């Protein structure tokens, strides 16, 4: 095989042609890791394939469509675009695939969206509408940019702090209980922090994940610059989407590695777990409740640092230098669980599909915006699982997940309580 | 040229028999069905003769009824449409004994009487059905899917591969014996499957309608030297069901089956009829029999843990069930059964099923062990309506494959020389079968009168089977009138 030169550059889908061709249709991307297979039910992890059934709605199917596109066998049309976007980009496929093979499935899917937009066929109209809001007011809701730090009224921040708290659109505009709780927790541990106020733009997740990379890059660049200007070295967030976008997607967009970014991103749960070890946080209040935890895709299997790579692919597909592979092994899995288990009174129970095998809440990848019914369907399946394990409350570590679950609960009248982990911690330390 | 001459050319004059006495001999069996005369009897002397006879029969559209055993009970060798009885009893060579690969290759005329002693010399055996008649052909017993008396193997099929002459005269080898150059090939014929299709399944249960086997490979197992036997008595068949399910599932034991007092007494009686009378009185209504044996390596230790496992089960699930090492009141405690079970019924004695009245009609089928009690109750309810004495009803339950199913057999004894009794049994057999079929009994071997009722019910199966039969036997020469053909 003649050598080829490839890069982890998502703006050219050809960089992932090898991965598309080498997909063997083993469906590791669909099923829960067989070792953990729980039986006849809760056995899959790809919401898209389960909902829409035809293979074009699975990772392997989309890879084949992408390949056919590259080879000129098909062109973009409405069905194709729909197939591309009815997917949460939840990364379950990527982690599943990499259990056995060295294929870059997540990147290939992102790259397909980027091409779809570049060729003028994507994203979905709802995604464009959000992009406009972000462009105008720098948030997904189109609320006034100046209102971004309204939630922080009366909260003490410190401009000299090493920590910058990246709040995100949902925390800033819709679910202000989460940032308030977060600020309280930071305060309780004596950790000073600052916020970026109206200089915090939407992280860009809704743009990047829908293939609007150019727009995403603008948002990203602004945030990167602001962080740099602030002099903070650590960005803390309580939103899984912001977390992954700042940690993984920013470097990815600019063909860099996470370690080159000049800042470190941590999620509140990492911080709290660390404080627990140091003994600087105490859970004083008894919370008598059977709870379970939902692994947000972006905090869990998709959160490993991004390592940019370019190099040769040689005979047998051997890469030189060896390409890095993010397998989802080192996601933020244990910290939230350890925290919950440490809260007195809590009867913690895991769901059936956890960590790298978790079922997406349904909101990601632009699905909540373009296909709300699909997002709800996905959340409902997860809520059934909560019921199955007999938990009274579902704890999330991402406002997007909380939002989506709450909508599903409102619609179904289910009596499961959904709480963000920041709120739960805050309750425990009050 | 007439058929007889042609046949003589194939097998030699001495092997073509058509004297009235001989024809008469082949016109009946030891069962309930009326006689039917063959046109001619041909004794095959070598396996090559078989294809030639079948080709000739095809040319003349003459029925061919293959016969391998020296004794028959189910009427399937009675030539109701005349034709050639192809007697294979002289094809009785043990072609190969291959202990390392645990296989034996034999011709169809090889009987249980013949093979058991031969193999015992090498401490090996073919697992047999329960006390088979010494003159029964080993191959045809398993072709007809008799249930092995050892249910511990997950794959209750001792028959591996064979050479068959299809009804259209083509000679074919099944499974891994299908390799070019067999038997002088590295492949020895231990894999039944293929080539392409599982051809080995088509002649099974076919009552000779799907061709003639020239030879077959069968599995060998070691012949245990050290054994223990346990008897578990029950007064109520319902109580036996849980042990029947549980015991073989922990992979213990060899022979394992349930008999009622009638069948057990028939087997254990030495002095006829006194022993029988006494035994059938004192034996428990039901006895579950289990042997535990030591393999060639560390036999005692094996027996030890299996025994322990058996008693653990008892402790856990059926504490009230006695596990006896000897049957009370039975001379020798019935322990000689261990040795009896590893051999066919002694040739010099009247076959156990014929001891009581001279003949026996066995009505058997496949069932879930848990359903056995209701099938039994049905027979108990119905039998008296035919004037059949319940005290003479034999019952045998043979677990198959660790009791995923069982072979359930009702033995009805009658005087073969009393035509009225015979007819009564025939009616009872047929009507009971219909009742049991309606209740879900699975008749995988529908002999005689049962064929029509079973095939009528098996609508889609019957249609497909007829299509298959037509492919293999376009002239319908092989044992016509059987099954649904």
């Amino acid at each position, binding site marked *: 095989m003649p050598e080829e030169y490839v890069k982890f550059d998502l703006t050219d889908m050809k960089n992932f042609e090898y991965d598309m061709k080498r997909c063997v249709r083993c469906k590791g991307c669909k099923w829960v890791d067989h070792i953990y297979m729980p039986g006849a039910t809760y056995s899959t992890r790809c919401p898209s394939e389960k909902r829409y059934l035809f293979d074009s709605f699975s990772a392997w199917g989309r890879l084949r469509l992408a390949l056919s596109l590259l080879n000129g066998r098909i062109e973009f049309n409405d069905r194709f675009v729909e197939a591309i976007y009815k997917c949460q980009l939840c990364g379950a496929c990527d982690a599943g695939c990499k259990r056995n093979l060295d294929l870059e499935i997540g990147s290939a899917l992102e790259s397909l969206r980027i091409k779809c937009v570049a060729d003028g066929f994507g994203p979905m109209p709802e995604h464009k509408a959000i992009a406009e809001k972000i462009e105008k007011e720098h948030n997904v809701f189109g609320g006034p940019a100046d209102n971004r730090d309204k939630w922080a009224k009366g909260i003490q921040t410190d401009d000299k702090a090493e920590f910058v708290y990246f709040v995100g659109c949902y925390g800033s505009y819709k679910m202000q209980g989460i940032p308030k709780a977060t600020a309280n927790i930071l305060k309780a541990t004596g950790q000073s922090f600052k916020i970026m106020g109206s200089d915090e733009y939407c992280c860009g997740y809704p743009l990047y994940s829908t293939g609007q990379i150019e727009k995403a890059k603008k948002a990203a660049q602004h945030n990167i610059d602001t962080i740099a200007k602030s002099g903070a070295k650590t960005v803390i967030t309580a939103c899984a989407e912001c977390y992954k976008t700042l940690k993984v997607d920013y470097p990815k967009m600019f063909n860099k590695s996470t370690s080159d970014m000049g800042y470190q991103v941590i999620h509140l749960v990492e911080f709290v777990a660390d404080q627990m070890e140091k003994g600087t946080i105490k859970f004083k209040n008894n919370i008598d409740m059977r709870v379970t935890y939902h692994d947000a895709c972006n905090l869990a299997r998709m959160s490993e640092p991004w390592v940019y790579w370019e190099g040769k692919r040689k005979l047998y597909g051997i890469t030189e230098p060896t390409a890095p592979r993010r397998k989802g092994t080192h996601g933020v899995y244990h910290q939230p669980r350890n925290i919950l288990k440490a809260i007195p009174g809590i009867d913690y129970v895991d769901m059936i599909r956890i960590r790298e095998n978790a079922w997406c809440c349904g909101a990601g990848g632009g699905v909540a915006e373009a296909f709300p019914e699909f997002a709800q369907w996905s959340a409902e399946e997860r809520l059934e699982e909560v019921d199955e394990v007999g938990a009274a409350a579902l704890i999330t570590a991402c406002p997007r997940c909380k939002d989506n679950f709450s909508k599903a609960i409102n619609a179904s009248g289910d009596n499961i309580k959904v709480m963000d982990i920041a709120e739960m911690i805050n309750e425990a330390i009050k | 040229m007439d058929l007889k001459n042609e046949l003589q050319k194939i097998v030699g004059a001495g092997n073509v028999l058509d004297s009235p006495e001989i024809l008469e001999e082949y016109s009946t069996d030891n069962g309930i069905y009326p006689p039917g005369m063959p046109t001619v009897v041909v004794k095959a002397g070598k396996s090559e003769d078989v294809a030639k006879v079948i080709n000739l029969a095809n040319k003349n559209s003459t029925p061919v009824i293959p016969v391998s055993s020296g004794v028959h009970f189910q009427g399937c060798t009675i030539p109701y449409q005349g034709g050639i009885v192809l007697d294979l009893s002289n094809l009785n060579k043990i072609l190969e004994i291959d202990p390392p690969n645990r296989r034996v290759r034999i011709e169809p005329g090889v009987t249980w009487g013949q093979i058991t002693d031969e193999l015992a010399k090498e401490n090996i055996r073919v697992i047999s059905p329960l006390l088979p008649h010494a003159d029964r052909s080993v191959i045809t017993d398993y072709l007809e899917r008799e249930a092995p008396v050892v249910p511990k193997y997950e794959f209750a099929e001792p028959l591996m591969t064979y050479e068959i002459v299809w009804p259209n005269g083509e000679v*074919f*080898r099944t499974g891994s014996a299908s390799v070019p150059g067999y038997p002088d090939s590295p492949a020895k014929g231990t894999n039944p499957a293929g080539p392409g299709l599982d051809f080995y399944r088509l002649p099974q249960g076919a009552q000779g309608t799907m061709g003639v086997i020239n030879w077959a490979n069968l599995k060998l197992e070691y012949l245990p030297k050290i054994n223990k036997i346990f008897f578990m008595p029950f007064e109520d068949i319902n109580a036996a069901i849980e042990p029947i399910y549980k015991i073989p599932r922990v992979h213990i034991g060899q022979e394992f089956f349930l008999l009622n007092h009638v069948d057990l007494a028939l087997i254990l009686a030495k002095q006829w009829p006194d022993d029988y009378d006494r035994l059938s009185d004192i034996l428990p209504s039901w006895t579950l029999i289990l042997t535990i044996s030591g393999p060639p390596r560390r036999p005692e230790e094996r027996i030890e843990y299996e025994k322990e496992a058996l008693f653990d089960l008892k402790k856990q699930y059926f504490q009230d069930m006695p596990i006896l090492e000897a049957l009370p009141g039975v001379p020798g405690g019935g322990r000689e059964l261990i040795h009896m079970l590893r051999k066919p019924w002694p040739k010099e004695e009247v076959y156990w099923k014929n001891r009581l009245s001279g003949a026996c009609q066995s009505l058997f089928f496949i069932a879930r062990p848990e359903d056995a009690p209701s099938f039994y109750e049905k027979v108990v309810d119905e039998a008296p309506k035919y004037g059949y004495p319940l005290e003479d009803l034999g019952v045998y339950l043979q677990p198959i494959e660790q009791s995923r199913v069982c072979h359930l057999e009702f033995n009805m004894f009658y005087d073969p020389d009393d035509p009225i009794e015979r007819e009564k049994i025939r009616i009872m057999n047929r009507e009971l079968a219909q009742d049991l079929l309606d209740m879900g009994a699975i008749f995988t071997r529908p002999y005689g009168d049962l*064929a029509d009722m079973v095939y009528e019910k098996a609508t889609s199966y019957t249609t497909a089977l007829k299509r298959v039969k037509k492919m293999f036997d376009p002239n319908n020469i092989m044992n016509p009138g059987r099954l*649904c053909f």
Partner: protein
Amino acid sequence: MGIPQEAYKAMEDIVGSQYITDDQVIAQAYVGRLGHGKDTGIDLEMNVPPAVIVLPRTTKEVQGILKIAHRYKINYVPASSFWISHCAPKRPNSIVLDLKRMNDLEIDEENMCAICGPGVIFSQLQEEAIKRGMYTTTPGGGSQVSVVANHINWGLSPLNYRNGVPGRRVLGGEWVLPDGELLRIGSMSTSDDPFWGEGPGPDLRGLLRGWIGWFGAMGVVTKLAVKLLPFHDEGLKPVGISPHTTLQFPEKKRIRWYNFVMPTRESLVECMYDIGKAEIAAALTKVPQQWRYIAKAGCREDFWEGWNTNEARKSINNIHICRVMLVGYASEEQLEYEERVLMDIMDSYGAKLGRTRQSDNSWIKNADSATMWMMTGAYTSVQVTVDTVDCGVKGGEGLAREKPAFTPPLMDDYGEPGWFQVSEIGHMGYIEFLQYWDPNPNQENLYKKDEWNYIKVPTLDAEWGMFNAFNMYASPMNLTGKAYGPECRKWFEKVKAEFDPDKISNDPIPWDVDEYVDKVDWVNKEDYINRDWSKG
């Protein structure tokens, strides 16, 4: 549209519009390039997109679709889990029946069977079985494989050592024949209960499959009861995070793996015979060297770093690993007994017990067959034969001697004689001979991997008298189908002519290789077509 409008409409009426499509974009997701046979000549040159994809839910719906296909003479391809190239259409205007919605699973605990729709996969069933103290044979081919498709087509695994070869594990069920008529097999022939495999008289399971099955060329099995076998009741605990997940064995000594290093290949074979004869163990297999290196490697590059060494090259003739699994089905005492017997046997050969992890990640519930593609990007097995243990070993060694002439394009595996294992407590041995290559089309002489696969290996097997009936579906019928039986191909033709005269059920299977090699210039067909195989 590729098929008549009325036919499409009729099918749509049966399944509902959301379960059928003729969208040609969606169809691209179904164009082959999958599983066994991927990147071989047939996959690359014969596979085409389907015209219609339909997702039936019930047997009745499948019957309806097949009847329509029959009426309009439209080729169709049933597919349950898509792990073999045969389930990609090779004829234009075909219907793919994607059976994933038929995923009903019922466990009959008392009578130890599982009644499965084709959408049920092995890891699902295995979990449900283990929960109840039983197990099934997860095929080496993968836990993601359909239980039904595997039982009717393939079914090999070291677990067959106890559980029996696959054809025996098929019980009753529903089989929609090529023309849409329903055939109920086994105990379902006369009842609604599929718990037993034999039907009245001749056993039509013989028509359903052989050493392997029809691969969709004889209609659709919509429901099948398969055997479950008793297991120990201590369960197995999943541990680890992907990719390092495994099933931990219980503390109690109910299940254990043992890796022995045998002094020679001969002793490896002999100990296998002895273990079988002693009637101990639950699985017994030899591990090919590449797999050991793959298991240790974190990625492809790691593998090659290990494999491109003298140590690896020498390992083929120097390291002979016998892997034995013992299960205390009855008790810990059983396992302890078997361990003592095993040690007696192994000691007598001077075997050394190596370090063995007490967990399982490749046979019981998970089977990582996708890793077969890890090394080079392409894989296929050419010889999958079962007869005696000895025969299996001879076959592997023979092929290893011939393979260098085809290397490259095949990957150099240093003469590895393949993967062998024992079935049915020593009554049979199984050999699988593996090839790997780089599928990049720009490679020189890439066609030689097809020549090796389709022609050379089957010819050698037939000449040697090896039972490679697997190749019935990976070599020309005119070769293997002539040599074995002999002339078993005639029966395929007859069965097809009777049940599928228009050849609409997954045509051109099983004649696809004949059709393929007809078009290429590197095969001299006269060599095998005119050959008299009766001479061996």
